[in-house]
């Protein structure tokens, strides 16, 4: 079927918009793989992760970076984290499974989420309008991650630094989520 090729389309068509010095940008081409810890297998997984990535399974709320900086692990549940890395090829699960083997259960989540980066001076005040979590550095320092709800949507929020946040929300409702974030920035600018 030479004439039938499947082309990927990003959830938000590669959105980018500047609001003065504040930018809202879709982050594309990311792989996201959930890693679940088999019952009784925490130590095995930890040691596999240590061997492969030089870091251990992150506690909920925290993130861990592989020693080469290519994979960020987001601690989301007591027995589940997400691995976030550049998407290459069509099988992100394989990329993790090849390294960690059967020490974990893996599920592809790359297409489940739309990702936005909100960065700049208005980021925190814009998030104040939708995010119930306190983002003061003492409460939510760089590298923190949390799952919460904003404007009736489940959202994963990751702090890159005091002025820059990655926001992930479900792909199907990504336009609604984008509208919510856009409105927030507009309302405070």
């Amino acid at each position, binding site marked *: 079927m030479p004439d039938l090729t499947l082309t990927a389309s990003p959830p938000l068509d590669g959105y980018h918009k500047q609001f003065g010095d504040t930018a809202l940008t879709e982050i594309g081409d990311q792989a996201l793989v959930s890693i679940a810890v088999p019952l009784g297998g925490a130590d095995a997984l930890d040691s596999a992760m240590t061997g492969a990535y030089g870091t251990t399974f992150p506690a909920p*709320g925290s993130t861990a970076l592989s020693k080469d900086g290519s994979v960020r692990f987001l601690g989301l549940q007591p027995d589940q984290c997400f691995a976030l890395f550049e998407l290459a090829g069509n099988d992100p699960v394989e990329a993790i499974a090849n390294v960690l083997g059967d020490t974990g259960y893996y599920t592809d989540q790359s297409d489940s989420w739309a990702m936005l980066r909100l960065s700049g001076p208005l980021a925190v005040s814009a998030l104040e309008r939708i995010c119930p979590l306190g983002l003061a550095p003492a409460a939510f320092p760089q590298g923190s991650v949390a799952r919460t709800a904003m404007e009736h949507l489940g959202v994963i929020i990751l702090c890159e630094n005091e002025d820059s946040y990655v926001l992930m929300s479900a792909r199907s409702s990504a336009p609604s989520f984008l509208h919510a974030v856009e409105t927030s920035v507009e309302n405070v600018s």
Partner: protein
Amino acid sequence: MIINHPLLGPRDAAEFVYLGDASLIDRPDWQSDTAADDFYEYQYLRDNPAGETRELWFHEQGDRSWLVVTRNTLTHEITKVELARDVALAAGRDR
């Protein structure tokens, strides 16, 4: 309300979904001779105390943990929050 999640710290109760009395963990033995009565009581009857109660909340917009929250139904004061899984294991539930 704010629920002080044992792993995540204080979170607005709006992130959680309420189920009911923590006795719902104690699902009866289906093979018992009194299973019909046991399941009826398990499913339908409640202490409904005016005072301290233990109840199940699910952190739906969060880490997906089921929690057992000890809360006073007169004052709403929360005195203890545990992972329901730990409570279930401690109560001897297994598989």
